[in-house]
């Protein structure tokens, strides 16, 4: 078995190479004890079993972020036979920084130059042979977006897995002298990879420990000596030394034929990140995205919904009315249906979001919205999960992983569920159709807007109370605009979508069974009637909603069922009010337009759904935040809904 690790900067095309090498034989899991995805794939080539691990996209190996730590630990502990380092040829200088660090670590590196087509467009002529000689590792040109010569690359991997890379990097005379000195001492006490350890001792790396007081003391002295001589810290000087080595390399191996500094991306950015145009462009692109996602998914959702409804009814009529048939028909089939109905919008949304990310626009959204997010103590990067929240908050909560600090992550998670997800839309549409037929669009839009306003107000409150202190520094690359590939978007869609199904699916399913049991028990009651347990619970809690204008047991039951997923509320009203024909009339008897709107406000703001609660538990690895969000969203929903209803009455609405 040959073990390969894929390493590279974010946006270097590493994932495309991984996909084209392993095809669909890949497996997404988690790194032990971490929430970062671990992707693995297998292939067989010339009788050799090859295992490929896709390391997280990183800029360096300094253990600054969790991703960097994971990549570094993997290379040290697992000692992969080959580290295939994917390098973006349009951006050699920064990409090679990681390459240098990989070679330092003693990894067996092969450099795969990617994006050569774009480098050529930019007028960059790269001699990979010279680069290879100077780095002391093989360098090959690939093109991951198109078909690569897979067999050539794999041949090289087989050949190289039997060799060992030698670190030929120079850090300038002064550093080299001291590194060599420490290296000799470390060699004497038989330490693995002495040159790397020597460098790490000089950088005072917290994760590297040497059990030899004499050497540690010596490294401390050298560090102080260097600090005095250089006038700045050793870490910064070593980083500069690496960059100096890289620019030496590039002097010999890179020729720039054009000195045109304005790239196409720079020109596009003049419009897209423009002070006045940035926000309108963002809003319009969001509008188009949601329009397309819903336009394509609504008919499919309808089909799934009707299909499962028919199947459930068929089971009940075929086996006769009994609690078994009801469990199968209403409970299990209904439960699976409740999960599967989410598949079209969520998969399509992931598809659209993956295209937004791959083409480079997502990073521009972070730029455009930074100003706005700053007011609530977050920065532009936190806006990306909020955009995703309009689709589904489960993946949105997972997307907060890209935020560096825990404070920023949790604060984002706490306000993210106020973004109206796609499951809330059917409820809005249903009620808007029944009560506000002339102003349907306006009513729905006002709810989306209200969600954002509430998120902002709560962000401001949190910033002054629970989440004091500054947000993490905002440093983010703006990748060049690129045409996304269909294959990439499809794979991304499948990965995220199936993860959602696994994580949220089980919970929704269990919750549906619980709701079914509560609606059917005690034995012999009519399904979801006032005598059933759920009806009793509904009757018990309904007085709480009296001041909001909907203090009847049916509405309480509907809200309880909405904990599973908010769109279930529509179905529950259907069941409670005896089918689709009579439900509208019954609703008109139960609600006034004002109380209907107060109800929608409550639906928007209260506990998002069990799926989101579960994913917050998983991501924060504690019960504290999921419990907190469950309690506080209900309080917020009650207060805002109260203001709407009582305020409306005061103003003379009904």
């Amino acid at each position, binding site marked *: 078995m040959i073990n390969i690790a894929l390493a590279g900067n974010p946006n270097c095309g590493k994932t495309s190479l991984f996909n084209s090498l392993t095809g669909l034989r890949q497996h997404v899991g988690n790194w032990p004890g971490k929430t970062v995805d671990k992707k693995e794939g297998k292939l067989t080539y010339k009788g050799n079993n090859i295992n490929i691990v896709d390391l997280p996209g990183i800029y360096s190996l300094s253990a600054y972020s969790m991703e960097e730590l994971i990549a570094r630990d993997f290379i040290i502990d697992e000692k992969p036979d080959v580290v295939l380092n994917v390098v973006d040829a349009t951006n050699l200088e*920064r990409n090679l920084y990681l390459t240098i660090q990989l070679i330092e670590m003693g990894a067996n590196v092969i450099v795969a130059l990617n994006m050569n087509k774009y480098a050529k467009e930019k007028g960059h002529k790269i001699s990979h042979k010279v680069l290879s000689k100077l780095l002391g590792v093989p360098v090959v040109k690939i093109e991951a977006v198109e078909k690569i010569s897979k067999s050539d690359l794999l041949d090289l991997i087989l050949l190289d897995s039997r060799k060992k890379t030698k670190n030929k990097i120079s850090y300038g005379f002064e550093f080299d002298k001291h590194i060599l000195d420490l290296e000799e001492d470390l060699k004497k006490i038989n330490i693995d990879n002495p040159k790397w350890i020597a460098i790490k001792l000089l950088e005072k790396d917290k994760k590297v420990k040497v059990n030899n007081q004499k050497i540690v003391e010596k490294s401390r002295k050298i560090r102080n000596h260097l600090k005095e001589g250089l006038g*700045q810290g050793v870490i910064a000087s070593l980083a500069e030394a690496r960059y100096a080595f890289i620019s030496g390399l590039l002097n010999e191996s890179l020729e720039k034929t054009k000195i045109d500094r304005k790239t196409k991306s*720079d020109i596009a*950015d003049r419009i897209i990140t423009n002070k006045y145009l940035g926000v309108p462009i963002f809003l319009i692109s969001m509008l188009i995205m949601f329009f397309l996602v819903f336009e394509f998914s609504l008919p499919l959702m309808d089909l799934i919904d009707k299909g499962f409804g028919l199947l459930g009814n068929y089971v009940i009529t075929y086996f006769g009315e009994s609690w078994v048939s009801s469990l199968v028909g209403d409970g299990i089939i209904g439960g699976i249906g409740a999960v599967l109905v989410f598949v079209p919008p969520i998969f399509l949304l992931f598809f659209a979001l993956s295209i937004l990310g791959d083409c480079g626009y997502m990073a521009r959204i972070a730029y455009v919205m930074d100003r706005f997010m700053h007011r609530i103590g977050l920065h532009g990067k936190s806006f990306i999960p909020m955009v995703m929240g309009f689709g589904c908050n489960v993946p949105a909560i997972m997307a907060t992983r890209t935020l560096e600090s825990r404070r920023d992550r949790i604060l984002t998670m706490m306000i993210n569920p106020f973004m109206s997800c796609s499951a809330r839309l059917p409820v809005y549409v249903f009620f808007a159709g029944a009560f506000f037929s002339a102003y349907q669009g306006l009513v729905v839009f006002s709810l989306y807007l209200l969600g954002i306003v509430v998120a902002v107000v709560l962000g401001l409150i949190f910033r002054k109370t629970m989440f004091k202190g500054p947000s993490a520094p905002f440093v983010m690359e703006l990748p060049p605009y690129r045409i996304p590939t269909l294959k990439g978007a499809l794979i991304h869609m499948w990965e995220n979508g199936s993860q959602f199904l696994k994580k949220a699916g089980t919970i929704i399913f269990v919750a549906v069974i619980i709701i079914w049991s509560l609606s059917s028990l005690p034995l012999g009651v009519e399904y979801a009637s006032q005598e059933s347990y759920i009806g009793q619970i509904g009757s018990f809690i309904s007085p709480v909603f009296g001041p909001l204008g909907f203090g009847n047991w049916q509405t309480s039951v509907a809200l309880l069922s909405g904990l599973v997923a908010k769109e279930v509320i529509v179905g529950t009203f259907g069941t409670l009010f005896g089918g689709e024909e009579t439900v509208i009339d019954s609703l008109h008897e139960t609600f006034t337009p004002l109380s209907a709107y107060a109800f929608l406000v409550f639906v928007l703001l209260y506990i998002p759904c069990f799926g989101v609660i579960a994913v917050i538990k998983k991501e924060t690895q504690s019960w504290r935040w999921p419990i907190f969000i469950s309690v506080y969203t209900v309080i917020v929903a009650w207060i805002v809904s109260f203001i709407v209803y009582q305020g409306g009455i005061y103003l003379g609405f009904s």
Partner: protein
Amino acid sequence: MKVLSNAEEGSDVIVESVGCGRELKRRLSELGIHVGSKLHILKNDVSGPVIVKVKDYRLMLGRKQCGEIHIK
């Protein structure tokens, strides 16, 4: 002293010192922003992040961080 947050859009500047905390300083040096590195200011509105071109790529830096990067 001039800082990155008030650098003129479209100008070329050289980093003179980086005054922020240790971790961020390391991060920035690894991304190519260290004493002596050349930056081209692609975007600097009155508020919001600054976009610079450094080592042939675009980097976006928060306004607060830009106030700690001295330039000439």
